[in-house]
Protein backbone atom coordinates (compact mmCIF):
# COMPACT_ATOMS: atom_id res chain seq x y z
CA UNK A 1 0.00 0.00 0.00
CA UNK A 2 2.92 2.35 -0.41
CA UNK A 3 2.10 3.11 -4.02
CA UNK A 4 -0.79 5.51 -3.48
CA UNK A 5 0.93 7.19 -0.50
CA UNK A 6 4.03 7.83 -2.63
CA UNK A 7 1.83 9.26 -5.32
CA UNK A 8 0.03 11.35 -2.76
CA UNK A 9 3.30 12.66 -1.46
CA UNK A 10 4.47 13.56 -4.93
CA UNK A 11 1.20 15.27 -5.71
CA UNK A 12 1.40 17.22 -2.49
CA UNK A 13 4.98 18.26 -3.23
CA UNK A 14 3.93 19.46 -6.66
CA UNK A 15 1.09 21.43 -5.17
CA UNK A 16 3.40 23.12 -2.71
CA UNK A 17 5.80 24.07 -5.48
CA UNK A 18 3.00 25.46 -7.57
CA UNK A 19 1.75 27.53 -4.68
CA UNK A 20 5.19 28.93 -4.07
CA UNK A 21 5.71 29.77 -7.69
CA UNK A 22 2.29 31.34 -7.89
CA UNK A 23 3.50 34.21 -5.85
CA UNK A 24 6.06 35.10 -8.44
CA UNK A 25 4.56 33.92 -11.70
CA UNK A 26 2.74 36.31 -13.96
CA UNK A 27 0.87 35.22 -17.04
CA UNK A 28 0.95 37.32 -20.14
CA UNK A 29 -0.26 36.81 -23.68
CA UNK A 30 2.95 37.89 -25.30
CA UNK A 31 6.29 37.40 -23.65
CA UNK A 32 8.15 40.51 -22.68
CA UNK A 33 11.35 41.48 -24.43
CA UNK A 34 14.25 41.89 -22.06
CA UNK A 35 17.46 43.82 -22.38
CA UNK A 36 19.14 42.97 -19.12
CA UNK A 37 22.26 45.00 -19.84
CA UNK A 38 20.12 48.12 -19.63
CA UNK A 39 17.70 46.71 -17.03
CA UNK A 40 15.01 47.16 -19.65
CA UNK A 41 11.77 45.31 -20.36
CA UNK A 42 9.25 45.97 -23.13
CA UNK A 43 5.73 44.72 -22.88
CA UNK A 44 4.04 44.45 -26.23
CA UNK A 45 0.67 43.36 -24.98
CA UNK A 46 -2.07 45.78 -25.89
CA UNK A 47 -3.30 47.42 -22.70
CA UNK A 48 -6.91 46.25 -22.78
CA UNK A 49 -7.46 46.36 -19.05
CA UNK A 50 -6.33 49.95 -18.97
CA UNK A 51 -8.59 50.96 -21.80
CA UNK A 52 -11.59 49.67 -19.93
CA UNK A 53 -10.69 51.61 -16.84
CA UNK A 54 -11.85 55.16 -16.35
CA UNK A 55 -9.96 58.37 -17.06
CA UNK A 56 -7.44 58.04 -14.23
CA UNK A 57 -6.26 54.44 -14.25
CA UNK A 58 -3.82 54.67 -11.35
CA UNK A 59 -4.57 51.32 -9.76
CA UNK A 60 -4.50 49.50 -13.10
CA UNK A 61 -1.25 51.17 -14.04
CA UNK A 62 0.22 50.11 -10.75
CA UNK A 63 -0.94 46.52 -11.21
CA UNK A 64 0.52 46.43 -14.72
CA UNK A 65 3.77 47.88 -13.44
CA UNK A 66 3.92 45.32 -10.66
CA UNK A 67 3.43 42.45 -13.07
CA UNK A 68 6.03 43.69 -15.50
CA UNK A 69 8.53 44.40 -12.76
CA UNK A 70 8.00 40.92 -11.35
CA UNK A 71 8.86 39.39 -14.70
CA UNK A 72 11.96 41.56 -15.05
CA UNK A 73 13.11 40.66 -11.56
CA UNK A 74 12.57 36.98 -12.30
CA UNK A 75 14.87 37.33 -15.28
CA UNK A 76 17.48 39.25 -13.32
CA UNK A 77 17.52 36.70 -10.52
CA UNK A 78 18.42 34.02 -13.03
CA UNK A 79 21.68 35.71 -14.00
CA UNK A 80 24.98 34.24 -12.73
CA UNK A 81 25.83 35.75 -9.37
CA UNK A 82 28.92 36.08 -7.27
CA UNK A 83 29.66 37.36 -3.84
CA UNK A 84 31.66 40.58 -3.67
CA UNK A 85 32.37 41.86 -0.16
CA UNK A 86 29.30 40.37 1.46
CA UNK A 87 26.91 41.54 -1.24
CA UNK A 88 25.27 39.37 -3.83
CA UNK A 89 26.17 40.74 -7.23
CA UNK A 90 24.76 39.64 -10.55
CA UNK A 91 26.83 39.86 -13.68
CA UNK A 92 24.92 41.75 -16.34
CA UNK A 93 25.22 40.90 -20.02
CA UNK A 94 26.03 43.50 -22.67
CA UNK A 95 23.15 45.85 -23.50
CA UNK A 96 21.43 44.80 -26.69
CA UNK A 97 19.45 47.92 -27.60
CA UNK A 98 21.29 49.90 -30.22
CA UNK A 99 21.37 53.56 -29.31
CA UNK A 100 22.97 56.34 -31.33
CA UNK A 101 26.42 57.46 -30.32
CA UNK A 102 27.12 60.71 -28.63
CA UNK A 103 30.20 61.62 -30.63
CA UNK A 104 31.48 60.38 -33.96
CA UNK A 105 33.74 57.36 -34.19
CA UNK A 106 37.36 58.40 -33.56
CA UNK A 107 39.52 58.40 -36.67
CA UNK A 108 42.46 56.02 -36.68
CA UNK A 109 45.72 57.71 -35.92
CA UNK A 110 48.41 57.76 -38.63
CA UNK A 111 51.26 55.35 -38.03
CA UNK A 112 54.43 56.62 -36.46
CA UNK A 113 57.68 56.52 -38.40
CA UNK A 114 58.85 53.39 -36.66
CA UNK A 115 55.51 51.63 -37.20
CA UNK A 116 55.66 52.42 -40.91
CA UNK A 117 59.21 51.06 -41.13
CA UNK A 118 58.32 47.93 -39.18
CA UNK A 119 55.33 47.29 -41.38
CA UNK A 120 57.49 47.70 -44.48
CA UNK A 121 60.17 45.34 -43.24
CA UNK A 122 57.75 42.90 -41.70
CA UNK A 123 59.15 43.31 -38.20
CA UNK A 124 56.81 42.09 -35.48
CA UNK A 125 57.18 43.05 -31.83
CA UNK A 126 58.93 40.26 -29.97
CA UNK A 127 57.32 39.14 -26.79
CA UNK A 128 59.77 39.79 -23.98
CA UNK A 129 59.70 38.32 -20.49
CA UNK A 130 59.12 40.67 -17.58
CA UNK A 131 61.93 39.27 -15.42
CA UNK A 132 65.56 38.71 -16.36
CA UNK A 133 68.13 36.69 -14.46
CA UNK A 134 70.68 38.98 -12.88
CA UNK A 135 74.04 37.30 -12.25
CA UNK A 136 75.39 40.03 -10.00
CA UNK A 137 72.63 39.86 -7.41
CA UNK A 138 71.74 36.23 -8.12
CA UNK A 139 68.00 36.75 -8.47
CA UNK A 140 65.29 37.48 -11.01
CA UNK A 141 64.92 41.16 -11.58
CA UNK A 142 62.87 43.43 -13.79
CA UNK A 143 64.00 44.13 -17.29
CA UNK A 144 63.65 47.91 -16.68
CA UNK A 145 62.53 50.15 -13.87
CA UNK A 146 63.14 50.17 -10.13
CA UNK A 147 65.80 47.67 -9.09
CA UNK A 148 66.39 46.49 -12.61
CA UNK A 149 68.77 43.73 -13.67
CA UNK A 150 71.60 45.77 -15.22
CA UNK A 151 71.62 49.24 -13.74
CA UNK A 152 74.26 51.50 -15.24
CA UNK A 153 73.72 54.34 -12.83
CA UNK A 154 74.82 52.44 -9.72
CA UNK A 155 78.24 51.47 -11.01
CA UNK A 156 81.03 52.77 -8.87
CA UNK A 157 83.80 51.98 -11.36
CA UNK A 158 83.97 52.74 -15.04
CA UNK A 159 87.07 51.73 -16.99
CA UNK A 160 88.45 54.38 -19.25
CA UNK A 161 88.22 52.99 -22.80
CA UNK A 162 91.39 52.70 -24.89
CA UNK A 163 91.15 55.67 -27.16
CA UNK A 164 89.63 58.09 -24.68
CA UNK A 165 91.14 61.07 -22.95
CA UNK A 166 92.31 59.93 -19.44
CA UNK A 167 91.20 63.18 -17.85
CA UNK A 168 87.63 62.96 -19.12
CA UNK A 169 84.85 62.35 -16.60
CA UNK A 170 83.28 59.06 -17.69
CA UNK A 171 80.41 59.34 -15.23
CA UNK A 172 79.43 62.75 -16.54
CA UNK A 173 79.75 61.40 -20.06
CA UNK A 174 77.29 58.63 -19.27
CA UNK A 175 74.79 61.03 -17.73
CA UNK A 176 75.10 63.33 -20.73
CA UNK A 177 74.54 60.50 -23.16
CA UNK A 178 71.39 59.48 -21.29
CA UNK A 179 70.08 63.06 -21.41
CA UNK A 180 70.70 63.22 -25.11
CA UNK A 181 68.84 59.98 -25.70
CA UNK A 182 65.88 61.18 -23.65
CA UNK A 183 65.80 64.47 -25.57
CA UNK A 184 65.96 62.67 -28.91
CA UNK A 185 63.13 60.38 -27.86
CA UNK A 186 61.02 63.36 -26.80
CA UNK A 187 61.70 65.11 -30.08
CA UNK A 188 60.60 62.07 -32.05
CA UNK A 189 57.46 61.75 -29.96
CA UNK A 190 56.56 65.38 -30.62
CA UNK A 191 57.25 64.93 -34.31
CA UNK A 192 54.94 61.92 -34.41
CA UNK A 193 52.24 63.89 -32.62
CA UNK A 194 52.64 66.80 -35.03
CA UNK A 195 52.28 64.42 -37.93
CA UNK A 196 49.17 62.88 -36.37
CA UNK A 197 47.52 66.25 -35.85
CA UNK A 198 48.88 67.60 -39.14
CA UNK A 199 50.55 70.61 -37.51
CA UNK A 200 54.09 71.75 -37.89
CA UNK A 201 56.76 71.81 -35.26
CA UNK A 202 58.55 75.13 -35.05
CA UNK A 203 61.65 74.80 -37.17
CA UNK A 204 65.02 74.81 -35.49
CA UNK A 205 67.05 75.73 -38.52
CA UNK A 206 70.07 77.79 -37.53
CA UNK A 207 69.56 77.32 -33.80
CA UNK A 208 72.09 74.61 -33.24
CA UNK A 209 75.44 76.07 -32.22
CA UNK A 210 78.07 75.56 -34.89
CA UNK A 211 81.27 77.50 -34.76
CA UNK A 212 80.38 79.60 -37.78
CA UNK A 213 77.21 81.57 -37.29
CA UNK A 214 76.69 85.08 -38.54
CA UNK A 215 75.65 87.99 -36.37
CA UNK A 216 72.04 87.87 -37.58
CA UNK A 217 71.73 84.14 -36.98
CA UNK A 218 73.09 84.52 -33.49
CA UNK A 219 70.73 87.38 -32.84
CA UNK A 220 67.78 85.32 -34.00
CA UNK A 221 68.85 82.36 -31.90
CA UNK A 222 69.17 84.60 -28.87
CA UNK A 223 65.68 86.00 -29.39
CA UNK A 224 64.14 82.58 -29.71
CA UNK A 225 65.94 81.45 -26.59
CA UNK A 226 64.59 84.43 -24.70
CA UNK A 227 61.00 83.66 -25.60
CA UNK A 228 61.33 79.94 -24.86
CA UNK A 229 60.56 80.21 -21.19
CA UNK A 230 57.41 79.30 -19.31
CA UNK A 231 56.34 82.95 -19.14
CA UNK A 232 57.12 83.46 -22.83
CA UNK A 233 59.98 85.84 -22.09
CA UNK A 234 58.12 88.28 -19.86
CA UNK A 235 60.54 88.20 -16.95
CA UNK A 236 63.81 87.91 -18.83
CA UNK A 237 66.22 90.68 -17.97
CA UNK A 238 68.04 92.57 -20.61
CA UNK A 239 71.70 93.56 -20.52
CA UNK A 240 72.36 97.15 -19.30
CA UNK A 241 72.62 98.76 -22.71
CA UNK A 242 70.59 96.32 -24.70
CA UNK A 243 67.72 97.81 -26.62
CA UNK A 244 64.28 96.28 -26.92
CA UNK A 245 63.90 94.33 -30.14
CA UNK A 246 62.00 96.18 -32.86
CA UNK A 247 59.38 94.56 -34.98
CA UNK A 248 58.80 91.52 -32.85
CA UNK A 249 55.04 91.95 -32.79
CA UNK A 250 52.54 90.07 -34.89
CA UNK A 251 52.81 90.64 -38.61
CA UNK A 252 49.55 91.76 -40.15
CA UNK A 253 48.53 89.84 -43.19
CA UNK A 254 46.33 91.43 -45.80
CA UNK A 255 44.30 89.64 -48.39
CA UNK A 256 45.03 90.55 -52.02
CA UNK A 257 42.78 93.27 -53.39
CA UNK A 258 40.89 90.98 -55.70
CA UNK A 259 41.30 87.33 -56.41
CA UNK A 260 39.04 85.06 -54.42
CA UNK A 261 35.58 86.13 -55.55
CA UNK A 262 33.74 83.38 -53.73
CA UNK A 263 35.26 84.34 -50.40
CA UNK A 264 34.56 88.01 -50.98
CA UNK A 265 30.93 87.28 -51.82
CA UNK A 266 30.62 85.14 -48.72
CA UNK A 267 32.07 87.86 -46.53
CA UNK A 268 29.75 90.51 -47.95
CA UNK A 269 26.67 88.36 -47.50
CA UNK A 270 27.72 87.54 -43.95
CA UNK A 271 28.08 91.24 -43.25
CA UNK A 272 24.60 91.92 -44.61
CA UNK A 273 23.18 89.14 -42.52
CA UNK A 274 24.73 90.54 -39.37
CA UNK A 275 23.44 93.98 -40.17
CA UNK A 276 19.97 92.62 -40.78
CA UNK A 277 19.82 90.51 -37.67
CA UNK A 278 18.17 92.00 -34.66
CA UNK A 279 20.98 91.05 -32.31
CA UNK A 280 23.31 93.92 -31.52
CA UNK A 281 26.93 93.33 -32.36
CA UNK A 282 28.13 95.47 -29.48
CA UNK A 283 27.28 94.04 -26.12
CA UNK A 284 26.60 97.19 -24.16
CA UNK A 285 26.66 95.77 -20.66
CA UNK A 286 29.91 93.97 -21.30
CA UNK A 287 31.46 97.04 -22.86
CA UNK A 288 30.51 99.23 -19.92
CA UNK A 289 31.76 96.69 -17.44
CA UNK A 290 35.04 96.50 -19.30
CA UNK A 291 35.33 100.27 -19.31
CA UNK A 292 34.68 100.48 -15.60
CA UNK A 293 37.22 97.80 -14.89
CA UNK A 294 39.84 99.68 -16.88
CA UNK A 295 39.09 102.84 -14.96
CA UNK A 296 39.43 100.97 -11.69
CA UNK A 297 42.80 99.68 -12.75
CA UNK A 298 44.02 103.12 -13.80
CA UNK A 299 42.91 104.55 -10.49
CA UNK A 300 44.64 101.84 -8.55
CA UNK A 301 47.86 102.37 -10.49
CA UNK A 302 47.73 106.11 -9.88
CA UNK A 303 47.06 105.57 -6.18
CA UNK A 304 50.04 103.34 -5.94
CA UNK A 305 52.24 105.89 -7.65
CA UNK A 306 51.02 108.70 -5.43
CA UNK A 307 51.51 106.61 -2.30
CA UNK A 308 55.03 105.77 -3.41
CA UNK A 309 55.84 109.38 -4.15
CA UNK A 310 54.29 110.41 -0.86
CA UNK A 311 56.34 107.89 1.06
CA UNK A 312 59.52 109.06 -0.61
CA UNK A 313 58.76 112.66 0.29
CA UNK A 314 58.18 111.55 3.85
CA UNK A 315 54.55 112.44 4.28
CA UNK A 316 51.17 111.10 3.57
CA UNK A 317 49.63 113.71 1.33
CA UNK A 318 46.57 111.76 0.42
CA UNK A 319 45.38 111.00 -2.99
CA UNK A 320 44.90 114.66 -3.82
CA UNK A 321 41.20 114.85 -4.10
CA UNK A 322 40.84 111.87 -6.37
CA UNK A 323 38.47 110.18 -4.04
CA UNK A 324 35.76 107.75 -4.89
CA UNK A 325 33.27 110.48 -5.58
CA UNK A 326 35.11 111.69 -8.61
CA UNK A 327 35.31 109.02 -11.32
CA UNK A 328 31.67 107.93 -11.53
CA UNK A 329 30.60 111.25 -12.97
CA UNK A 330 33.19 111.04 -15.72
CA UNK A 331 32.35 107.43 -16.23
CA UNK A 332 28.70 108.28 -16.35
CA UNK A 333 29.23 110.66 -19.20
CA UNK A 334 31.20 108.11 -21.12
CA UNK A 335 28.55 105.53 -20.50
CA UNK A 336 25.93 107.89 -21.77
CA UNK A 337 27.79 108.01 -25.02
CA UNK A 338 27.90 104.28 -25.33
CA UNK A 339 24.36 103.88 -24.22
CA UNK A 340 23.18 105.84 -27.19
CA UNK A 341 22.74 102.68 -29.17
CA UNK A 342 19.07 102.09 -29.79
CA UNK A 343 18.60 98.38 -30.14
CA UNK A 344 20.20 96.20 -27.58
CA UNK A 345 17.96 93.24 -27.13
CA UNK A 346 20.01 90.71 -25.26
CA UNK A 347 20.67 87.57 -27.25
CA UNK A 348 20.04 84.23 -25.64
CA UNK A 349 23.65 83.20 -25.41
CA UNK A 350 25.29 82.40 -22.12
CA UNK A 351 26.53 85.80 -20.88
CA UNK A 352 25.65 87.61 -17.70
CA UNK A 353 22.75 89.68 -18.89
CA UNK A 354 20.53 92.31 -17.45
CA UNK A 355 17.84 93.69 -19.66
CA UNK A 356 18.48 97.19 -20.98
CA UNK A 357 21.54 99.36 -21.18
CA UNK A 358 20.97 101.76 -18.33
CA UNK A 359 21.17 99.12 -15.67
CA UNK A 360 24.79 98.70 -16.62
CA UNK A 361 25.41 102.13 -15.21
CA UNK A 362 23.52 101.51 -12.00
CA UNK A 363 25.91 98.78 -11.01
CA UNK A 364 28.42 101.13 -9.47
CA UNK A 365 25.97 102.81 -7.14
Amino acid sequence: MEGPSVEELLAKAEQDEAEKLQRITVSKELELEFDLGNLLASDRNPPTALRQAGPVPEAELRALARDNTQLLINQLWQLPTERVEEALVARLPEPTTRLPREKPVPKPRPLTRWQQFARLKGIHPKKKTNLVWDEVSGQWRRRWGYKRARDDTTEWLIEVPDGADPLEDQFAKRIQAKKERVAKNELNRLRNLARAHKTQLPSTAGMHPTGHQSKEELGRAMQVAKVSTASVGRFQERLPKEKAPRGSGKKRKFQPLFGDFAAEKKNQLELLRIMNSKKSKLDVTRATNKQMREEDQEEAAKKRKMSQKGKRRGGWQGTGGKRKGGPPSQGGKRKGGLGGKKQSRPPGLGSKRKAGQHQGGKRRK
Partner: protein
Amino acid sequence: MLIKGGNANATVTQVLKDVYALKKPYGVLYKKKNITRPFEDQTSLEFFSKKSDCSLFMFGSHNKKRPNNLVIGRMYDYHVLDMIELGIEKFVSLKDIKNSKCPEGTKPMIIFAGDDFDTTEDYKRLKSLLIDFFRGPTVANIRLAGLEYVLHFTALKGKVYFRSYKLLLKKSGCRTPRIELEEMGPSLDMVLRRTHLASDDLYKLSMKMPKALKPKKKKNMSHDTFGTTYGRIHMQKQDLSKLQTRKMKGLKKRPAERITDDQEKKSKRIKKN
Protein backbone atom coordinates in the same frame (compact mmCIF):
# COMPACT_ATOMS: atom_id res chain seq x y z
CA MET B 1 21.26 69.35 -19.48
CA LEU B 2 18.05 70.84 -18.16
CA ILE B 3 17.14 74.26 -19.49
CA LYS B 4 14.28 76.61 -18.72
CA GLY B 5 12.72 78.64 -21.46
CA GLY B 6 11.88 82.30 -21.24
CA ASN B 7 8.35 81.64 -20.06
CA ALA B 8 8.70 78.55 -17.93
CA ASN B 9 6.09 78.27 -15.22
CA ALA B 10 6.14 76.58 -11.84
CA THR B 11 4.99 73.16 -13.09
CA VAL B 12 7.62 72.91 -15.76
CA THR B 13 10.33 74.15 -13.42
CA GLN B 14 9.36 71.55 -10.87
CA VAL B 15 9.45 68.83 -13.52
CA LEU B 16 12.97 69.85 -14.48
CA LYS B 17 14.05 69.90 -10.85
CA ASP B 18 12.65 66.41 -10.28
CA VAL B 19 14.36 65.00 -13.33
CA TYR B 20 17.57 66.62 -12.15
CA ALA B 21 17.16 64.90 -8.79
CA LEU B 22 16.69 61.59 -10.57
CA LYS B 23 19.71 62.08 -12.76
CA LYS B 24 22.22 63.36 -10.23
CA PRO B 25 25.21 63.49 -10.48
CA TYR B 26 25.14 63.35 -14.24
CA GLY B 27 22.84 66.26 -14.89
CA VAL B 28 23.24 70.01 -15.21
CA LEU B 29 20.32 72.23 -14.25
CA TYR B 30 20.55 75.77 -15.53
CA LYS B 31 18.98 78.20 -13.13
CA LYS B 32 18.45 81.11 -15.44
CA LYS B 33 15.80 81.37 -18.12
CA ASN B 34 16.94 81.29 -21.71
CA ILE B 35 14.80 82.87 -24.36
CA THR B 36 15.13 80.42 -27.24
CA ARG B 37 12.85 78.31 -29.32
CA PRO B 38 14.36 74.86 -29.84
CA PHE B 39 12.23 74.02 -32.83
CA GLU B 40 13.21 77.15 -34.70
CA ASP B 41 16.75 77.89 -33.73
CA GLN B 42 19.01 75.15 -32.49
CA THR B 43 22.25 77.12 -32.31
CA SER B 44 21.96 78.15 -28.68
CA LEU B 45 21.19 74.58 -27.62
CA GLU B 46 24.24 73.38 -29.52
CA PHE B 47 26.34 76.08 -27.89
CA PHE B 48 25.20 75.00 -24.44
CA SER B 49 25.91 71.39 -25.18
CA LYS B 50 29.41 72.21 -26.35
CA LYS B 51 30.12 74.20 -23.23
CA SER B 52 28.77 71.66 -20.78
CA ASP B 53 29.70 68.60 -22.86
CA CYS B 54 26.19 67.15 -22.51
CA SER B 55 24.40 65.49 -25.36
CA LEU B 56 20.98 64.90 -23.79
CA PHE B 57 18.79 67.85 -22.97
CA MET B 58 15.35 68.79 -21.70
CA PHE B 59 13.82 72.19 -22.35
CA GLY B 60 10.76 73.40 -20.51
CA SER B 61 8.48 76.25 -21.51
CA HIS B 62 4.87 77.38 -21.26
CA ASN B 63 2.67 79.50 -23.48
CA LYS B 64 -0.96 79.73 -24.35
CA LYS B 65 -0.72 77.60 -27.45
CA ARG B 66 1.46 74.92 -25.84
CA PRO B 67 0.92 74.85 -22.12
CA ASN B 68 3.40 72.97 -19.92
CA ASN B 69 5.70 72.08 -22.74
CA LEU B 70 8.70 69.81 -22.37
CA VAL B 71 11.13 69.15 -25.18
CA ILE B 72 13.39 66.10 -24.79
CA GLY B 73 16.24 65.75 -27.20
CA ARG B 74 19.63 64.32 -27.88
CA MET B 75 22.64 65.41 -29.86
CA TYR B 76 25.19 63.80 -32.05
CA ASP B 77 28.55 65.53 -32.36
CA TYR B 78 27.02 68.61 -30.71
CA HIS B 79 24.31 68.90 -33.37
CA VAL B 80 20.69 68.17 -32.63
CA LEU B 81 19.78 64.64 -33.63
CA ASP B 82 16.24 64.10 -32.30
CA MET B 83 13.81 66.36 -30.47
CA ILE B 84 10.37 65.40 -29.22
CA GLU B 85 7.93 67.83 -27.67
CA LEU B 86 5.67 66.53 -24.92
CA GLY B 87 2.81 68.29 -23.23
CA ILE B 88 2.42 67.65 -19.53
CA GLU B 89 -1.17 67.19 -18.50
CA LYS B 90 -0.83 65.97 -14.96
CA PHE B 91 2.18 66.13 -12.74
CA VAL B 92 2.78 64.84 -9.26
CA SER B 93 6.15 65.88 -7.93
CA LEU B 94 8.68 64.05 -5.77
CA LYS B 95 7.92 66.20 -2.80
CA ASP B 96 4.17 65.75 -3.07
CA ILE B 97 4.47 62.05 -2.38
CA LYS B 98 5.61 61.75 1.16
CA ASN B 99 7.70 58.68 1.67
CA SER B 100 11.31 57.69 1.68
CA LYS B 101 13.14 57.97 -1.60
CA CYS B 102 15.90 55.86 -3.01
CA PRO B 103 19.50 57.08 -2.92
CA GLU B 104 20.89 59.24 -5.70
CA GLY B 105 22.63 57.63 -8.60
CA THR B 106 20.91 54.24 -8.49
CA LYS B 107 20.46 52.62 -11.85
CA PRO B 108 16.75 52.46 -12.58
CA MET B 109 14.88 49.63 -14.22
CA ILE B 110 12.93 50.82 -17.23
CA ILE B 111 9.73 49.18 -18.46
CA PHE B 112 7.70 50.11 -21.51
CA ALA B 113 4.13 48.88 -21.84
CA GLY B 114 1.76 49.20 -24.75
CA ASP B 115 2.12 48.08 -28.34
CA ASP B 116 2.41 51.66 -29.60
CA PHE B 117 6.03 51.73 -28.59
CA ASP B 118 6.89 49.18 -31.22
CA THR B 119 4.54 50.06 -34.04
CA THR B 120 4.52 53.83 -34.51
CA GLU B 121 7.74 55.45 -35.74
CA ASP B 122 7.38 58.45 -33.42
CA TYR B 123 6.84 56.25 -30.42
CA LYS B 124 9.80 54.09 -31.35
CA ARG B 125 12.07 57.12 -31.36
CA LEU B 126 10.52 58.31 -28.14
CA LYS B 127 11.27 54.95 -26.57
CA SER B 128 14.86 55.06 -27.75
CA LEU B 129 15.21 58.62 -26.48
CA LEU B 130 13.75 57.78 -23.07
CA ILE B 131 16.03 54.76 -22.70
CA ASP B 132 19.00 56.92 -23.56
CA PHE B 133 17.93 59.59 -21.14
CA PHE B 134 17.04 57.56 -18.10
CA ARG B 135 19.35 54.61 -18.14
CA GLY B 136 22.35 55.21 -15.98
CA PRO B 137 25.94 54.41 -16.79
CA THR B 138 26.53 50.95 -18.25
CA VAL B 139 27.81 48.61 -15.57
CA ALA B 140 29.01 45.04 -15.71
CA ASN B 141 27.76 43.94 -12.31
CA ILE B 142 24.83 45.02 -10.24
CA ARG B 143 24.06 44.38 -6.60
CA LEU B 144 20.77 42.53 -6.50
CA ALA B 145 19.67 44.18 -3.31
CA GLY B 146 20.40 47.57 -4.84
CA LEU B 147 17.69 47.35 -7.48
CA GLU B 148 15.32 49.81 -5.89
CA TYR B 149 13.83 51.93 -8.53
CA VAL B 150 11.66 51.30 -11.56
CA LEU B 151 10.38 53.71 -14.22
CA HIS B 152 7.28 52.57 -16.01
CA PHE B 153 6.11 54.11 -19.31
CA THR B 154 2.70 53.19 -20.69
CA ALA B 155 1.37 54.26 -24.05
CA LEU B 156 -2.40 54.40 -23.99
CA LYS B 157 -4.91 56.24 -26.16
CA GLY B 158 -2.38 58.71 -27.49
CA LYS B 159 -1.00 59.54 -24.07
CA VAL B 160 2.14 58.39 -22.35
CA TYR B 161 1.95 57.73 -18.65
CA PHE B 162 5.19 57.93 -16.75
CA ARG B 163 5.23 56.49 -13.23
CA SER B 164 8.13 55.75 -10.95
CA TYR B 165 7.94 53.24 -8.17
CA LYS B 166 10.14 52.13 -5.35
CA LEU B 167 10.72 48.42 -5.16
CA LEU B 168 9.93 46.35 -2.09
CA LEU B 169 11.22 42.80 -2.17
CA LYS B 170 9.02 40.46 -0.24
CA LYS B 171 9.62 36.87 0.65
CA SER B 172 8.20 34.29 -1.60
CA GLY B 173 8.70 30.58 -1.23
CA CYS B 174 11.65 30.39 -3.60
CA ARG B 175 14.82 32.32 -4.29
CA THR B 176 13.25 35.01 -6.44
CA PRO B 177 11.46 37.57 -4.29
CA ARG B 178 7.95 38.83 -4.81
CA ILE B 179 7.69 42.44 -5.82
CA GLU B 180 5.54 45.05 -4.22
CA LEU B 181 5.60 48.56 -5.57
CA GLU B 182 5.27 51.82 -3.77
CA GLU B 183 4.77 54.99 -5.73
CA MET B 184 7.66 57.26 -5.05
CA GLY B 185 8.74 59.56 -7.68
CA PRO B 186 7.43 62.02 -10.18
CA SER B 187 4.47 60.90 -12.22
CA LEU B 188 3.63 62.57 -15.50
CA ASP B 189 0.83 62.25 -17.99
CA MET B 190 2.20 63.35 -21.32
CA VAL B 191 0.85 64.01 -24.78
CA LEU B 192 2.99 63.81 -27.88
CA ARG B 193 3.20 67.15 -29.71
CA ARG B 194 5.69 68.11 -32.37
CA THR B 195 8.71 66.03 -33.26
CA HIS B 196 11.95 66.83 -35.01
CA LEU B 197 13.52 63.54 -35.91
CA ALA B 198 16.88 63.13 -37.57
CA SER B 199 17.08 62.28 -41.21
CA ASP B 200 17.76 58.66 -41.97
CA ASP B 201 21.36 59.08 -43.06
CA LEU B 202 22.29 61.17 -40.02
CA TYR B 203 20.68 58.56 -37.81
CA LYS B 204 22.63 55.82 -39.58
CA LEU B 205 25.83 57.79 -39.15
CA SER B 206 25.21 58.17 -35.46
CA MET B 207 24.56 54.46 -35.05
CA LYS B 208 27.85 53.49 -36.66
CA MET B 209 29.87 51.27 -34.38
CA PRO B 210 33.64 51.14 -34.57
CA LYS B 211 35.06 47.86 -35.75
CA ALA B 212 36.47 47.01 -32.36
CA LEU B 213 33.03 46.93 -30.76
CA LYS B 214 31.34 44.78 -33.37
CA PRO B 215 30.92 41.21 -32.18
CA LYS B 216 33.61 39.07 -33.76
CA LYS B 217 32.38 36.34 -36.03
CA LYS B 218 33.94 33.01 -35.31
CA LYS B 219 35.07 31.29 -38.45
CA ASN B 220 34.81 27.58 -39.21
CA MET B 221 31.74 27.16 -37.02
CA SER B 222 28.24 26.45 -38.22
CA HIS B 223 24.97 25.55 -36.59
CA ASP B 224 22.27 23.27 -37.89
CA THR B 225 18.56 23.45 -37.25
CA PHE B 226 18.69 21.13 -34.25
CA GLY B 227 21.08 23.40 -32.42
CA THR B 228 24.19 21.27 -32.87
CA THR B 229 27.35 23.24 -33.49
CA TYR B 230 29.69 21.95 -36.15
CA GLY B 231 33.29 22.96 -36.27
CA ARG B 232 35.84 22.52 -39.02
CA ILE B 233 39.42 21.61 -38.24
CA HIS B 234 42.15 21.65 -40.85
CA MET B 235 44.81 18.96 -40.42
CA GLN B 236 48.27 18.72 -41.88
CA LYS B 237 49.15 15.80 -44.15
CA GLN B 238 49.84 12.68 -42.10
CA ASP B 239 52.48 10.08 -42.81
CA LEU B 240 50.36 6.97 -42.54
CA SER B 241 53.32 4.64 -42.24
CA LYS B 242 54.31 6.31 -39.00
CA LEU B 243 50.78 6.21 -37.65
CA GLN B 244 50.49 5.16 -34.03
CA THR B 245 47.94 2.33 -33.97
CA ARG B 246 46.94 -0.21 -31.41
CA LYS B 247 49.49 -2.95 -31.04
CA MET B 248 48.03 -6.44 -31.11
CA LYS B 249 50.34 -8.67 -29.20
CA GLY B 250 49.17 -11.73 -31.05
CA LEU B 251 50.19 -10.33 -34.42
CA LYS B 252 53.70 -9.50 -33.25
CA LYS B 253 56.38 -11.27 -35.26
CA ARG B 254 58.30 -13.89 -33.35
CA PRO B 255 62.11 -13.98 -33.75
CA ALA B 256 62.08 -17.24 -35.81
CA GLU B 257 59.67 -15.76 -38.34
CA ARG B 258 61.73 -12.58 -38.57
CA ILE B 259 64.88 -14.59 -39.53
CA THR B 260 63.03 -16.44 -42.29
CA ASP B 261 61.72 -13.11 -43.56
CA ASP B 262 65.22 -11.70 -43.76
CA GLN B 263 66.45 -14.71 -45.62
CA GLU B 264 63.65 -14.36 -48.12
CA LYS B 265 64.52 -10.74 -48.68
CA LYS B 266 68.19 -11.60 -49.23
CA SER B 267 67.37 -14.30 -51.75
CA LYS B 268 65.10 -11.89 -53.61
CA ARG B 269 67.90 -9.39 -53.88
CA ILE B 270 70.34 -11.97 -55.20
CA LYS B 271 67.83 -13.04 -57.73
CA LYS B 272 67.38 -9.55 -59.05
CA ASN B 273 71.08 -9.03 -59.46
